[in-house]
């Protein structure tokens, strides 16, 4: 006799509806593989390419609080917008994003990154310049590499000085896929 599915679902829904979660998460399919998406009350806080929940949930608990529960409802908008993006019907995300748990330098980099438009690319160096730290290209790279909300915060649009892809936490193949989807010109 196992917990009835509808009871399990009802509990997960109620926990979120009553505002008792630090983080709600769910999974969603995409052309770049299954994604784990997670949100706090303030907004989307994590998209993971390798939804190996054990490590992810630990990270979420440490960053945002231990009340981490799979609960689909709070992620509905995120999943829908991601679907639209992957279907080529959306160029911009209208999602609140919660980057509060990150170091301030990283927040600064990621905020600036969000101004790089769909279909365009920028270099690490130019991003460093835009935040007023022209010699911090390497640190910018580090901040991007640890971007907790890839795709929506578009670190895939940042390329090397020669226009080469350079690196991507989700793997270069995914970076190529995302840029191709957006019709970006690649070197």
């Amino acid at each position, binding site marked *: *006799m*196992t917990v009835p599915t509808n*009871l399990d679902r009802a509990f997960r829904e*109620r926990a979120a509806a009553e505002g008792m979660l630090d983080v709600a998460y769910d999974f969603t399919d995409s052309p770049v593989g299954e994604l784990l998406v997670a949100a706090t009350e303030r907004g989307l806080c994590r998209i993971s390419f390798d939804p190996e929940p054990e490590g992810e*949930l630990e990270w979420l608990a440490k960053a945002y609080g231990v*009340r981490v529960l799979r609960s689909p409802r709070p992620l509905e908008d995120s999943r829908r917008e991601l679907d639209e993006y992957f279907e080529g019907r959306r160029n911009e995300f209208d999602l609140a994003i919660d980057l509060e748990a990150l170091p301030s330098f990283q927040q600064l980099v990621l905020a600036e990154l969000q101004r790089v438009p769909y279909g365009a690319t920028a270099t690490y160096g130019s991003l460093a310049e835009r935040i007023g730290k022209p010699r911090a290209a390497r640190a910018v790279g580090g901040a991007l590499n640890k971007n907790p909300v890839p795709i929506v915060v578009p670190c895939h649009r940042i390329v090397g000085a020669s226009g080469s892809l350079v690196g991507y936490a989700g793997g270069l193949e995914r970076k190529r896929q995302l840029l191709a989807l957006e019709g970006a010109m690649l070197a």
Partner: protein
Amino acid sequence: MEAVAIPPFERFYEDTREEIWRYLVRLLGREAAEEAFQETFLRALRGYAKLSHARHLRAWAYTIATRVAVDERRRRAPAGTIPELATEDERPAYAELDHLAGDLPATERAAVVLRYGYDLPYADIAAALGSTEAAARQATSSGVRRLRRRNT
């Protein structure tokens, strides 16, 4: 020096939900167990962020479930009926005990089942019943005496 880290709630929920569900079904019957199940884990969520360590998480889940079940039975007491016990059970020892303790007063029944079915210490039973440890001992032993009288 660091205490066992408190796992993400999802882990705790996945690890305990099945046995807590079976436990509540045995105590309350299937229908009432549904609401009690949600209430148990909502209460657990409420307290979860305030836990200072991850020891005895399983016993903690049982204490909350028991408290919810006792509340529920008290609430329904005027109606006078005690729900049918579930017959399915993968752990015959518990089922046997539950069956025996089936019509004890709610507090004694919970105390007996927690003590002898789940091996919880009196301190946890006391927490579950919202009483003192002495009262938990008392409820357990008077439950056992009542059972003995009845079964001899």
